[in-house]
């Protein structure tokens, strides 16, 4: 099983269609060492990475206030919630980072930039 996994990972790393050229060079070495790091329970000092599992990855959750296909309102609401939180608790408050994460997950960059510009000009249409 281990051999099969290693061969598949090497085949992926050698595929010519990787996005970054550097990834092809880095991937075989790092995957080999990552596998070696996983098998013995102790952590190697040179290898600082542990394996990322699915539980470590988060995004804006499904919000039942917005059950429909069109999530534009959801994005707008999260953006406003973030700025409401900033307005109430001050800039850089760690309670507000969760809202920041949500709106950055959902909203396209162009929309956020446009709203930020409107906000600077005092033309933003939202409540906060």
């Amino acid at each position, binding site marked *: 099983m281990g051999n099969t996994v290693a061969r598949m990972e090497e085949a992926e790393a050698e595929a010519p269609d990787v996005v970054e050229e550097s990834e092809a060079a880095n991937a075989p070495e790092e995957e080999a060492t990552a596998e070696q790091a996983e098998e013995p329970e102790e952590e190697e000092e040179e290898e600082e990475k542990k394996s990322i599992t699915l539980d470590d990855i988060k995004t804006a959750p499904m919000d039942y206030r917005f059950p429909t*296909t069109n999530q534009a309102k959801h994005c707008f609401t999260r953006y406003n919630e973030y700025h409401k939180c900033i307005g109430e608790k001050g800039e850089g408050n760690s309670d507000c980072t969760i809202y920041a994460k949500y709106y950055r997950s959902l909203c*396209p960059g162009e929309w956020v930039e446009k709203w930020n510009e409107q906000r600077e000009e005092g033309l933003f249409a939202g409540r906060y």
Partner: protein
Amino acid sequence: MTDFLFSRAWMDAPEAWQLGFQDAATPMMQGIIDLHQDIFFFAIIILVFVLWMLLRSLWHFYYSNNPIPERIVHGTTIEIVWTVVPSIILMFIAIPSFALLYSMDEVVDPAITIKTIGHQWYWTYEVALWVNFSLYYSDYNQSDEQSLAFDSYMIPEEDLELGQLRLLETDNRLIVPANTHVRMIITSADVLHSWAVPALGIKCDAVPGRLNQSSVFIKREGVYYGQCSELCGVNHGFMPIVVEAVSLDDYVQWVSNKLE
């Protein structure tokens, strides 16, 4: 060695003279294929029956054989039969159809959100991935200005390398972790487009001003091809989509490479 003897080559891109669907890579697409097979079974039965009736009528009752046609107007029993039997057939078709339709509405919290923005005539992908990057990459910058975003243009025919698919390859692929619930947010920056990948069973219009949400769960690693599916101008046929599903570790590594 035996891996190669017994391994399968998945069809995740169109083939010349293809008759059926591409191989499914998501439970949604597998559901669509199964529903299609269910309905096709009844369609064949109906086709054979109707053709038989038609040919029998033509054979036994053509003009020189039967110059005076019948003038039957009523037939209560047969009218009941040919109303009830189609209703039963429709019920057999509706049951798996609604099962699939309602299974689409089942909600699972996604692990990552990928935004797809259609332009004339390319796609932009933005990824917001919140991982405990201190385990992996300590300088992850969380400001507005730095998000993982890239454009995906078709590779023109003159730049294709041997083995690449014409009109389907792109310079940057959308890399996605396999066996992960992915939320796709699809929108457009100018005109209508449509983000479609047949092997994943997903086709969703990209409408300016809307963020259309679609959910994907790719069951196997591989490279999946699709094309823009809403007329959007001169190069509507030349803005394809390539999705590459990789293992979670490979994916996190790709993201951290991109961020650097």
